[in-house]
């Protein structure tokens, strides 16, 4: 039903557009230049007036209608639904709807039949009301628009402003989604912190929430506050991130220097896209590369020189993650190194400096803030990375800085906490939200820091 109306409105939009254009030319007569706006803007003006209000109504109706119908049915049949629990009420309404509009009915009874009758009569009224309103809006828009198309009419301004409104709406969607996600993280985390003191969580050194309610659910009683210490996860995350940066920073930076200052144009044209392909490899592929190829290799290598290496090691995950973030470092560093003005390189060369002296003493110091921010962005990417560590780093929440042992990270624990059947009000599940919030705060702080460094860098040459 919704899509039929949407298609009809699209048709109205196109037709009104064509007609508005025609009408504007008719009004202008032979002198097209007498029009304030080009005829196509008049077309857009009429089309927007005719179709947009009706379309907004259509969407609003689709959002509000089901809930409104439910409320009206409940109030009409109050004597039947009285005393039903929330879940029973939902089942009742679901069945009544199925009877009225077709669908799979669990089991029917007289009460549901009656409710279904109310449903269908209400739906019919709603349908007529909706259709009448839409037709009225379209007709009103067409009539008003048609009447106001005159040579002096500022159709261009109207269309431009509507387009701007659309752009604002789209960016607002992104912003409000972000705010919504953050708020949900915060509220769920607050519920968690009601059970587990925040200090026990942030500074606790023991992490084993899987053993929190062995054989029992939330009704088991108080959660054990001792087993939600996030420190082992943070240590694991830091260890793996450090290994990754240790790999990615030199490799990425040096390849950026090669690409920007040494590579000939054909080499650069091929090498840069190839490097960026690394960024396009799905992380799950990196994950099994780490788990099935790198980890056994490191284990074998370690044993051959007499070291005990666990089969899931921080080193394997860190190395592969480092390879994954090389393109972030190299691509961003390449950009900032290229942004260093050629005049500085010339100035240095003109004093008799060699290429490597120029790069070490002039280009890199000038690009340093940008490089730092590239590294920080890569770090925050590494901290948030999940798939590789899930597959290759293990689950043991050890506090260790030995890269040959298994560690676990914040993201891995979020995954394991939320995989499988969950009660959404147990401390164990809510811990995932608290971890998410912690992760978000860390990466947000890093990103803000990086952006500040970049901003400072931009002011450097002027």
């Amino acid at each position, binding site marked *: 039903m919704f899509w039929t109306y949407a298609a009809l409105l699209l048709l109205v939009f196109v037709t009104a557009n064509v007609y508005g254009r025609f009408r504007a030319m008719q009004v202008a007569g032979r002198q097209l230049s007498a029009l304030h706006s080009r005829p196509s803007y008049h077309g857009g003006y009429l089309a927007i007036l005719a179709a947009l209000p009706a379309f907004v109504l259509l969407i609003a109706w689709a959002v509000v209608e089901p809930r409104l119908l439910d409320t009206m049915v409940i109030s009409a049949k109050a004597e039947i639904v009285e005393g039903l629990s929330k879940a029973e009420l939902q089942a009742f309404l679901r069945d009544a709807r199925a009877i009225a509009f077709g669908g799979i009915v669990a089991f029917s009874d007289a009460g549901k039949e009656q409710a279904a009758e109310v449903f269908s009569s209400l739906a019919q009224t709603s349908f007529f009301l909706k259709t009448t309103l839409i037709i009225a809006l379209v007709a009103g828009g067409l009539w008003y628009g048609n009447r106001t198309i005159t040579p002096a009419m500022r159709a261009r301004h109207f269309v431009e402003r509507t387009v701007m409104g659309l752009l604002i709406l789209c960016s607002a969607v992104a912003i409000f989604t972000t705010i919504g996600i953050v708020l949900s993280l915060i509220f769920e985390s607050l519920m968690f912190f009601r059970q587990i003191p925040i200090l026990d969580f942030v500074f606790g050194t023991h992490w084993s929430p899987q053993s929190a309610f062995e054989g029992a659910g939330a009704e088991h009683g108080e959660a054990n506050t001792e087993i939600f210490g996030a420190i082992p996860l943070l240590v694991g995350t830091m260890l793996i991130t450090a290994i990754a940066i240790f790999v990615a920073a030199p490799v990425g930076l040096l390849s950026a220097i090669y690409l920007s200052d040494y590579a000939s144009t054909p080499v650069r044209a091929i090498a840069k896209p190839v490097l960026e392909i690394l960024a396009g490899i799905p992380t799950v592929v990196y994950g099994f590369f780490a788990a099935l190829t790198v980890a056994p290799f490191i284990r074998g290598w370690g044993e051959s020189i007499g070291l005990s290496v666990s089969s899931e090691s921080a080193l394997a995950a860190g190395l592969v993650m480092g390879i994954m973030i090389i393109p972030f470092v190299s691509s961003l560093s390449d950009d900032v190194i290229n942004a260093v003005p050629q005049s*500085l390189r*010339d*100035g240095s060369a*003109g*004093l*008799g*400096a060699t290429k490597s002296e120029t790069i070490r003493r002039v280009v890199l110091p000038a690009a340093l803030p940008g490089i730092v921010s590239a590294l920080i962005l890569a770090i925050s990417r590494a901290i948030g990375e999940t798939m590789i560590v899930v597959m290759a780093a293990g689950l043991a929440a050890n506090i260790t800085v030995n890269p040959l042992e298994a560690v676990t990270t914040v993201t891995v624990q979020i995954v394991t906490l939320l995989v499988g059947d969950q009660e959404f009000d147990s401390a164990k599940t809510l811990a995932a939200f608290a971890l998410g919030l912690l992760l978000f705060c860390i990466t947000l702080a890093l990103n803000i820091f990086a952006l500040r460094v970049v901003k400072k860098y931009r002011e450097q040459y002027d």
Partner: protein
Amino acid sequence: MALEMTTDTESAMNTMMSAPPAISAEGETLKMRGRDVKVFYGNKQALHGVDLDVRKNQVTALIGPSGCGKSTFLRCLNRMNDTIDICRVQGDILLDNDDVYDPRIDVVELRARVGMVFQKPNPFPKSIFENVAYGPRIHGLAQGKSDLEDIVASSLQRAGLFEEVKDRLDEPGTGLSGGQQQRLCIARAIAVSPEVILMDEPCSALDPIATAKVEELMDELRQNYTIVIVTHSMQQAARVSQRTAFFHLGNLVEEGLTNDIFTNPKDQRTQDYITGRFG
């Protein structure tokens, strides 16, 4: 183009430097000599065989309309064209008696002898002190810290900037005014004790007062250095230079004493250009 430093560079230079300097008909020492210099950017020829001498301790001005090849010629003198991939240079350019395009010549050493100041002031994003100390550091010219400080101070003094910046040598060079930045770049070039200083429109980004200071400076620097300047301002060429060369469409049209070029040009094109009929 091969830029490798060869082991016999130094000995080659020493033997060549011991030869007597070239002398002009008027008895002046010729510091640099260009013979049949041709420059190509890809398939486009920018210079069509230029013969031009630069006399020691004089200011030589290169003038001409945009795209005439004067900057290209200037950049051949210390091989700054090497940084452009598609650029090819033919012919001979001699510094004293050394061919600067000889594969045995180390371009790093060449540029230490033939310094350059650019059109737009390009101080490094470092402190004023570090800007001037840059050249001496990379060439290892200073024996210790106090020696380096002396070099920096004397270079700034000779560039006429010392009094203005002596209390803030630690501040970034980019924070100076345009004219001060350009004098800082000149100080930076002087600090490596070059024999020749090339200036590519050094005043085109400066206001008249800063321009006057730089011009005054050029006249003083002439005592110790040989200067080649590219300029769009004919008044500037007339004010600062002893000799002037007029370029047009990649050819050297006329070269001579500045006074002669501006008062009594031999070529019709020079006449047209200096009287503002074209260009």
